[in-house]
């Protein structure tokens, strides 16, 4: 049943257009019958489960729950994946340097921004059945496509390095040697991708991602002042004091902890790989909302877990991953510190899986080779090689003595924010393109929200740039 990869010219090339027509009812059905692949069969099996759940959902009281269970995945993964090691470091820096205040509601705002843009990728993927990189190359050509890919691959690789720093530091708290920690993480990445099935990969990664919730017990052990949390949520006060440049940098890093280019590419490709269709868009929105909600709670928990450092006057200005856990130990106890360290490890490993998959999807889409987790290794080896190879290269850098890891950690979230406006411009152009989206083009308010997010990111970036070039403007 497997059709060879190298016969794309068996059918004449045509212009794509949005359609919900069944493949078997289409004019091309007689030709397609002989070209069905392993990937198609796996996807059809997933669609059958969804069709059954949808049918049963009409006759049973809680039947819709199974349908949601089947369709949840890309949204939760993308947001819990983005609660990665450098993001948790940013949230920890927020809590330890400024306590409960401005950054709590600010984190909620950033996740709202994240939801707004990620929802658009769900629609793009479900309607076009194509990944983000593929659509950019198709609609804007190679010139702009390679710019977008350059931003993605560069940002992804730097972020991957920081994930392995997180893995190393998280397990380092328990005395695990760096080589063993990083090697073990690579084994987990490898195990997740060798299933040859998107569904299995998604469920394995989701089961790992849910441990992002380890920051909740760590926060509870830190005994947060809930009255202050409520006050901060309502008033956005107290506003951080001290150096304005440092605050601006932290604001930028906190935005970069939530809204980044890899998320756009990953979720759209995952929606396609999962086989979602336009009728699943509402479930996709629920999935994205659930992911944003969980990630917001876990992010706030990371802030609250480190607030005791602020109250004890511990200077966390130059803390890196494991140092937070070590500093927390005498303040919230060994259990709380251990949970924090495990959370950093988990954040690193899940993000390493998601980000390397995002790079591999984009690479496969651009090179027009197999790019699905439903493909066996022998059929899509360039896809799997990109995925595992990028993870190995990032892991290797972390083990090089005297490599400037500090430089990478400091820049990664800021670079993510700076690379986001062009990525959002492509997203907004695509999602407003009736030839691509048909009836699912952006509405007025979705455009207002999308453009507002883009302008906010540009302002934040320009503010950072001006403050760097003209420090006296901020009293620096």
């Amino acid at each position, binding site marked *: 049943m497997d059709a060879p990869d190298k016969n794309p010219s068996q059918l004449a090339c045509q212009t794509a257009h949005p359609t919900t027509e069944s*493949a078997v009812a289409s004019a091309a059905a007689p030709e397609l019958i002989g070209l069905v692949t392993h990937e198609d069969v796996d*996807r*059809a099996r997933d669609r059958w489960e969804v069709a059954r759940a949808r049918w049963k959902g009409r006759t049973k009281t809680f039947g819709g729950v199974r349908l949601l269970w089947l369709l949840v995945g890309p949204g939760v993964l993308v947001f819990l994946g983005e609660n990665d090691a450098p993001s948790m470091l940013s949230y920890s820096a927020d809590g330890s340097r400024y306590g409960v205040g401005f950054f709590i509601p600010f984190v909620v705002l950033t996740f709202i921004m994240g939801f707004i843009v990620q929802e658009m990728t769900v629609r793009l993927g479900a309607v076009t059945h194509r990944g983000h990189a593929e659509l950019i190359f198709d609609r804007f050509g190679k010139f702009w496509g390679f710019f977008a890919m350059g931003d993605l691959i560069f940002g992804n690789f730097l972020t991957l390095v920081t994930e392995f720093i997180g893995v190393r530091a998280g397990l380092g708290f328990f005395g695990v040697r760096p080589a063993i920690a990083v090697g073990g993480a690579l084994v987990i990445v490898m195990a997740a991708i060798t299933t040859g099935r998107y569904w299995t990969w998604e469920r394995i990664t989701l089961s790992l991602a849910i441990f992002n919730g380890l920051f909740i017990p760590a926060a509870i052990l830190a005994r947060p002042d809930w009255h202050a949390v409520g006050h901060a949520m309502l008033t956005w006060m107290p506003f951080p004091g001290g150096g304005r440049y440092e605050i601006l940098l932290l604001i930028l890093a906190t935005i970069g902890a939530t809204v980044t280019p890899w998320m756009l590419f990953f979720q759209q490709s995952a929606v396609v790989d999962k086989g979602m269709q336009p009728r699943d868009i509402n479930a996709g929105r629920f999935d994205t909302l659930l992911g944003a909600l969980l990630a917001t709670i876990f992010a706030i928990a990371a802030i609250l877990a480190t607030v005791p450092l602020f109250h004890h006057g511990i200077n966390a200005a130059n803390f890196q991953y494991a140092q937070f856990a070590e500093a927390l130990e005498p303040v919230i106890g060994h259990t709380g510190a251990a949970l924090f360290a495990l959370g950093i490890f988990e954040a690193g490993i899940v993000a390493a899986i998601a980000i390397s998959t995002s790079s591999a999807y984009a690479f496969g889409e651009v090179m027009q080779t197999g790019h699905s987790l439903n493909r066996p290794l022998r059929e899509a080896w360039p896809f799997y090689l990109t995925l595992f190879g990028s993870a190995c290269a990032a892991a290797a850098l972390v083990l090089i003595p005297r490599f400037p890891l500090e430089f990478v950690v400091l820049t990664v979230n800021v670079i993510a924010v700076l690379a986001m406006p062009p990525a959002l411009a492509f997203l907004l152009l695509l999602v407003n393109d009736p030839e691509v989206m048909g009836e699912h083009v952006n509405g007025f308010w979705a455009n207002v929200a999308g453009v507002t997010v883009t302008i906010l990111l540009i302002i934040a970036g320009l503010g950072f740039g001006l403050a760097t070039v003209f420090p006296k403007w901020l009293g620096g």
Partner: protein
Amino acid sequence: MDSHHADISENPGALAPIDVKSEQLTLRDPRAVLSLLEADQVVAAKRRTHFGRKNLSFGTKALLWALRVYVVAMLVIVFISVYQAIHAAR
């Protein structure tokens, strides 16, 4: 697929409908696979169809160039500032 059966009604006689009430699914017949996927969801169909190049207006090109210049300029600033910060700390 919102009905009890997968939607293959426009291709009568091609295949018995996929019965979602059934506990068993056989996907050995490629037509059963096609009946569960949308026309543009099949790998071979996707390979032969592409969204063509969009004609970019002057305004769109100007926006994309402006954003490109913004990214490059800001990256230079970031690298210089972080490099200086690290050296200052040492």
